[in-house]
């Protein structure tokens, strides 16, 4: 399949998931159809103020996760890499939790806290990894930051002033697109777009890195610059995503991995399909959260982890058999 046809197919899937996402309600109800006939005013309020922002966020967040996953796998030349590996997600989560914890006001506070947390995690990686960071050092620094920020998040939970505050934090950490408005879309969009630009600018360099850092350098791609663009792009895009939706795992791992054979393993060519695929997958998963649960709505992060974790294991098993 050519790259163009693959992208068209993914756009088709995304459109189908989007239509479904606009129509489907709690418990898989399609009541919006009938409401449209009886009370078009209420129906249009639901559509424009509830369903549409939710859909837009699913697309933006899914694309950010898919894109940064593809870039990080290319950069680290490791099919098991994903945005949370660098501590970006847990850094953003910690930033948001701090905002929760201290009850800082304003609509901007939560996403800003998330962004600052993600950027702090990124800064720490560079401090820990030193002036000329190599891949292994970056991964290890990411693991350390992940562990530390998670511990601090747990500490915040531990010291939470009352059980409701703790519950609020926990639910937020699970990741969800419910009850988000257009405000959140406008908040997340600028850093995400900037992040996408940085990530997209890495495409050719990722192709060159296939042959190792020395060869990539000889082809005119400075490894340090590529790293800086890829990691700050991830921090911006994923930081903004986590800041508005909470932590949503495995999309950034699974989507690039699934699509890689379709672009003949070229890491640079994986970026656009992976963004589209991430958007489609997250939109579909969000439909699933509404469809599956008749009672309290399932959190999106729970659904992606439930589906993603077994897939991750499957990848590990496959890798092991290939090594043997």
């Amino acid at each position, binding site marked *: 399949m050519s*790259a163009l046809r693959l992208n068209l197919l993914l756009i088709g899937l995304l459109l189908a998931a989007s239509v479904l996402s606009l129509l489907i309600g709690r418990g898989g109800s399609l009541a919006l159809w009938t409401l449209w006939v009886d009370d078009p005013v209420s129906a249009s309020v639901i559509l424009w103020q509830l369903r549409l922002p939710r859909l837009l966020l699913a697309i933006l967040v899914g694309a950010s996760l898919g894109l940064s996953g593809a870039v990080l796998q290319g950069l680290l*030349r490791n099919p098991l890499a994903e945005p949370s590996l660098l501590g970006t997600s847990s850094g953003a989560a910690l930033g948001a939790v701090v905002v929760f914890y201290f009850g800082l006001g304003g609509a901007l506070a939560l996403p800003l806290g998330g962004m600052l947390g993600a950027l702090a995690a990124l800064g720490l990686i560079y401090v820990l990894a030193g002036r000329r960071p190599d891949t292994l050092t970056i991964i290890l620094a990411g693991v350390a930051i992940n562990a530390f920020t998670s511990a601090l998040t747990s500490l915040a939970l531990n010291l939470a002033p009352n059980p409701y505050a703790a519950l609020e934090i926990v639910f937020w950490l699970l990741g969800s697109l419910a009850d988000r408005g257009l405000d959140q879309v406008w908040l997340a969009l600028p850093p995400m777009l900037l992040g996408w630009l940085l990530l997209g600018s890495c495409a*050719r360099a990722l*192709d*060159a*890195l*296939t*042959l*190792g850092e*020395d*060869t990539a*350098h*000889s*082809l*005119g*791609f*400075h490894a340090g610059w590529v790293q800086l663009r890829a990691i700050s792009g991830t921090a911006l895009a994923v930081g903004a995503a986590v800041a508005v939706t909470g932590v949503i795992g495995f999309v950034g791992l699974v989507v690039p991995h699934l699509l*890689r054979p379709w672009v*003949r*393993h*070229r*890491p*640079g*060519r994986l970026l656009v399909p992976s963004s589209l695929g991430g958007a489609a997958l997250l939109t579909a998963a969000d439909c699933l959260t509404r469809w599956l649960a008749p009672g309290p709505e399932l959190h999106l992060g729970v659904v992606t982890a439930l589906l993603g974790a077994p897939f991750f294991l499957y990848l590990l098993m496959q890798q092991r058999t290939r090594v043997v």
Partner: protein
Amino acid sequence: MLQVQDLQVSLGRRVVIQRLGFSLVPGQLVGLIGPNGAGKTTLLRALVQLLDYAGVVRLQGEDARRLGQRERAQRLAYLAQGHSAHWTLPVPEVVALGRLPHRRGFSSRLSGQDQQAIERALHAADCVEFVDRRIDQLSGGERARVMLARALAVEAPVLLCDEPVASLDPYHQLHIMAMLRRHAEAGAVVVCVLHDLTWAGRFCHRLLLLHEGNLVADGGAAQVLSPENLARVYQISAITGVHADDCYLLPWQCLAAK
């Protein structure tokens, strides 16, 4: 074409290349030889600007440090040791990576010029039979040829190869060495790190002998591969002879340790 003046390279505190100078002109296949740890790979890596150095490297008259990444990449192709490929790309896609320094804009489509360069490189390194395979479906020697094709596809005026024939069978060693010699004679500067002194003596127009980071001999094979140099630098003796007007050399025996 490629001039090196007062080049000094340190790895950590250890000085690996000491005040080295030479000047290479187009039309010559240059063999860079010396025992393990003599500094051959370090020298190539410094020339590609992968390592910091003191001194000056001039590429076509211009200071290599001042050249932009892309411009340098168009003028200087480098085949690294190890031949790593992290993703299982199809062989033509690997060779196409050599065209990256020439690509402009965002289109992923190769130009006709790119396509022709890739074809030429695949032919030169005798890789045409693998075009339907992926890089992970090749043997070590086959992969080495594909990587050489990748470096050739840059079509740069200067080509630096780190052990281009080390893992090849005899047919392909002869084939590739002869091809590199023709490539140089067609107007390029070609520098190859070689361990096989037989090939070095037979195919190279000029040899640079490195020993402990110093350039200890520079010239034709007869002069550089003298029994004294072999004894002093390599601690070996060799059999030499003449066949069909060509001199040959065969490493034969270790000499007693220093």
